[in-house]
């Protein structure tokens, strides 16, 4: 049986990766907006993002809007590839090659 990437294979991190995958290539989203779209607590989201960041699946950039710091998040190239591989493996496991 194909092995599913353990970094992605957790409910919260899969939801984060799935949400980020809907952004265009090189697109990113602010932390509060992602939190709103996922309906997750800031702490929970932060914890799982750190694990994805450690695996270099997520690019995190800091910006400023006026004096307010904003954290933007997006899938890295490695993360996008890992997510596509994860989906492919899931489909294979489920016997659905599409």
């Amino acid at each position, binding site marked *: 049986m194909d092995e599913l990437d353990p970094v992605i294979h957790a409910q919260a991190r899969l939801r984060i990766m799935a949400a980020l995958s809907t952004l265009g290539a090189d697109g990113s989203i602010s932390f*509060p907006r992602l939190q709103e779209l996922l309906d997750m607590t800031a*702490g929970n989201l932060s914890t*799982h993002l750190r694990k994805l960041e450690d695996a270099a699946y997520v690019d995190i950039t800091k910006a400023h809007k006026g004096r307010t710091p904003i954290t933007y998040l997006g899938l890295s190239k490695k993360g996008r590839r890992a997510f596509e591989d994860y989906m492919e493996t899931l489909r294979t496991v489920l016997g659905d090659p599409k």
Partner: protein
Amino acid sequence: MDDSRSHDRPTDAAAADQADDALDPAAMYALLQNQQRSVQAQMGDFVPLISGAWGVAWLLGFGSLWLIDGVEGFSLPVPIAVTVFVAALVLAGGLSAWLGFRTGRGMRGNTGAAFTGIVFGNLWWVGSAAIGILGSGLRAQGMTEQLANFYYPCAYVLFAGIMYIVAGAIWRTVSSVIAGLWLVIVAAVASLFPYPQHYLFLALAAGIGFLALSLTSALRLRRIRRAAAGGDRRG
């Protein structure tokens, strides 16, 4: 993350541990698809509102222009008709801009996407201004008021239709291409009607067309939301 000021709360830690669990592959696949659908629904929830607002704006706006000379024994004063027309379009335009801004908050595209957005956004007022200036030029060259009554509405609706088609092509939204094609056809056909029936045709065809688009996009969103909520395990 800087934005998470309370990431070490015990309740969050417990929730994070729980969310660390994996379900069976089929459930994980459904979770993945439902999450993508949920984002898609949340990002698209403005479409029915915008198309509905434009449907009402076309109906009221062109309807009021038709009422100037369209009904025997009744004439809506021109200043009132023009005010209703302008107000309807400004309100629909303002609502579209606000909803577009609200939906795009917190999002950052790459440089290419930002360039496309800026060019497309500014093309609306550049094109509208050009149509207005061209109309003034044609009037100065001898275009009659009768012809101007056809030129302005048909040119603006034609331009709006082309912009919808371009938007659909850029952002790959079929509904936008269909709405744009409909407006292009409506603008062209409207010029074949006599005055002031062409206003009535524009009001009904463009207005009802956009209200129909609003209804179908609302139904589509409802279907996506249901699927996102887990109504469809495999998608």
